């Protein structure tokens, strides 16, 4: 007589809501009468919205036509996407002369080449990559985009930028494939492994100087046609304003936040005054001040570049918002961290740079990215003062004779572009948070 069953009991099926979509629907959407009614109501609303949206945009939409009139003759109620397609170049490049567009593309590609090593594993010197992208790349890109005569300072910076991007690319390749860095690689190739550190450094500096001089001489013959900023526009201009704003808002914000918390009375009062003044005025007011009031104070005949005025205004404005975000992050750091840093002999900048900021910035990521997204969307305000950013170009389509009155499709398209950009930023910030999160979970 055996009490132990020889057969194993058949495994039971998983609960309905775990196994089939239908089960999930039943448990989550129709569990009670109230939620059933609510679900049906919402589903109907979604169905009709989607149906009319898809009918308008896709099924009745017109993709190929030469004018809005032709769109109407094909489908009177559908969207006329042909206008957007005809204006593609303008939407992305604004009024930029069409045979010079390669300069914008090249500038974009260079930025990608510059930044990609930041995301590659095993590459060394990532802090330098980020720093150089902020300090050197703007000169190279700025000249590519605007052209004309180069001053001696810009020439030097451009040479530096070209050498830098070449070195960074080689360094990234060496790092990725050989898990080494460029400096060591050169020393080994030259067989100077045994030389003293000072000799090695001198060799590297010598090579660097030779490269910069060679590039400097080469770039003397490199002259691009001058293109006025008034021809910048479209998504390109939006990127320029937002890009400079984003690159400068964080450093500016950190300095202002540190200034505000400073024990030096003068520094803290100045910082507080600056932050509060800019934060209590709407951005559009700052922009109007910068572009219409400022020239009144200048001597007659002197006209400052409106784009530069706008970019400065955007940078200052966002640095002030960023300062408060950073200050909030700083206040979350326990006092023990400061004291700990002091006990190991770190000074003010050492404490801030090595101990406090890395911790604080990690906590601030959601807010920082939130400010960046706000900044990107705020750039559309420059259309009010006559710059042809993405929004303004999209609005201009409806004034072009063949596409007269085409304004809904263009705004939908603009919304789509902004959604893609903002959503990508938001997703990336989530990814960063997870990557950097340590023990706090």
């Amino acid at each position, binding site marked *: 007589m055996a009490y132990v069953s020889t057969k194993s009991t058949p495994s039971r099926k998983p609960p309905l809501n775990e196994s089939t979509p239908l089960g999930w629907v039943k448990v989550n959407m129709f569990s009670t009468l109230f939620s059933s009614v609510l679900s049906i109501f919402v589903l109907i609303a979604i169905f009709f919205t989607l149906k009319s949206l898809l009918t308008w945009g896709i099924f009745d939409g017109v993709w190929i036509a030469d004018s*809005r*009139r032709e769109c*109407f003759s094909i489908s*009177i109620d559908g969207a006329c996407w042909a206008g957007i397609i*005809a*204006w593609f*170049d*303008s939407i992305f*490049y*604004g*009024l*930029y*002369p*069409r045979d010079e567009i390669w300069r914008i593309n090249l500038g974009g590609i260079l930025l990608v080449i510059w930044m990609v090593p930041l995301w590659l594993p095993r590459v060394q010197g990532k802090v330098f990559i980020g720093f150089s992208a902020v300090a050197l790349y703007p000169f190279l890109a700025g000249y590519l985009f605007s052209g004309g005569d180069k001053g001696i300072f810009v020439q030097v910076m451009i040479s530096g930028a070209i050498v830098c991007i070449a070195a960074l690319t080689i360094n990234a390749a060496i790092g990725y494939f050989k898990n080494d860095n460029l400096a060591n690689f050169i020393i080994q190739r030259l067989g100077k492994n045994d030389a003293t550190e000072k000799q090695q450094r001198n060799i590297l500096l010598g090579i660097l100087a030779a490269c910069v001089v060679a590039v400097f001489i080469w770039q003397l013959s490199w002259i691009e046609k001058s293109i*006025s900023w*008034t*021809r910048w*526009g479209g998504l390109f201009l939006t990127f320029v304003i937002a890009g400079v704003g984003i690159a400068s808002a964080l450093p500016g914000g950190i300095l202002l936040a540190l200034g505000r918390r400073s024990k030096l009375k003068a520094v803290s009062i100045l910082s507080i005054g600056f932050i509060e003044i800019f934060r209590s005025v709407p951005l559009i007011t700052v922009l*109007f001040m910068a*572009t*219409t009031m400022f*020239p*009144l104070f200048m*001597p*007659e*005949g*002197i*006209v400052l570049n409106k784009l530069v005025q706008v970019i400065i205004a955007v940078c200052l404005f966002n640095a002030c918002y960023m300062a408060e975000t950073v200050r909030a992050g700083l206040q979350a750091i326990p006092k023990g961290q400061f004291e700990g840093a002091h006990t190991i002999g770190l000074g003010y900048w050492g404490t801030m740079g090595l101990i406090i900021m890395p911790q604080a910035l990690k906590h601030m990521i959601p807010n920082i990215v939130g400010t960046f997204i706000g900044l990107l969307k705020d750039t559309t305000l420059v259309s*009010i*003062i*006559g710059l*042809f950013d993405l929004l*303004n*170009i999209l*609005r*201009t389509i*409806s*004034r*072009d*004779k*063949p596409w*007269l*009155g085409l*304004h*809904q499709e263009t705004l939908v398209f603009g919304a789509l572009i902004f959604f893609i950009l903002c959503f990508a930023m938001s997703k990336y910030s989530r990814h960063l948070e997870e990557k950097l999160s340590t023990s706090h979970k």
Partner: protein
Amino acid sequence: MKLTTLLTSVAAVAAMAFAGVASASAESTLEIVKKRGHVRCQVGPASPGYYFLDSKGEWQGLDVANCHAVAAAIFGDISKLEIQSVSTQARFTSLANGDSDLLSRTATWTMSRDTQLGIDFLTPTFYDGQGFTVPKDSGIKTGMDLKGAKVCVTSGTTTESNLNDFSRTNNLNISAVTFEDFNVRDETYLQGGCDAVTGDKSSMAGNISAFPVPGDHLILPDTLSKEPLAPAVRHGDNQWADIVRWAQFAMINAEELGITSANVDDLKANSKNPSIRRMLGVEGDLHKGLGLEKDWAYNIIKQVGNYGENYDRYMGNGPQGIGIPREGSSNALWTKGGLMYSPPMR
């Protein structure tokens, strides 16, 4: 001691600033423009027919042609030009503070603007008038039928106040529905949000042509206001005003004399007509008074065309035109019963 040092330095800075201003204003606009190498011409946010961007990113339009003409007159090259697009609110400030050299956009020449804003209007390039658009089946035949009606209007221009004046004078009790953007105004009208649209007749004609069914709408015969649309320059530099004014007159005069961009070379070489020869700089020295080169008018006609050519191209039935008939309107030449009249060029 310290106070005196401070006071002296403040005085010195003030004196330097004053000297800077004085020396700068002594320079004429023409000199500044020549030194800079291009003309800064102000237009507005794109407006069909007058100034708009085409899909290649180039400015076009009747008012842009004026900008081109000034650049051609001074530099002999229409590309020596920077078009500035300035919002309606900032347009006159931007001209008065020296940001723009001239303003060539659909600005109505009114007395208060001409006398109070530090700017001078020149000769009108387009005579417009405000009117109403209504649906054909509404039964409205004149503006008087609009009693108690809701009328869509764009804000921030003379249009809105003209509508109020019209409503008050005729005791019509019209309620205005204002919009920033004419596209939204028209959309609201098309969806029945208002009984009529008011605006400049010319631009409304262009807008109606873009409606899904243009034939369903008509422009009422009433004209609410005179709208002479003229370019403007800063007050006080008469030489500059002369240049802009005569660049326009040259285009009108050329049409009257039958000079076009196509035949200008031929006429310059072969014409016996003294008026044509004087204008194109073959004989006489008309250019001296303007401080320009001998072939200033030739360059305008060659590169920009005469007034009629530009009208057809942008306002008339050309491929880019918004289809406003010119015959019989105020914009016809004076010889054909219109108001386009240039003083003789001699």
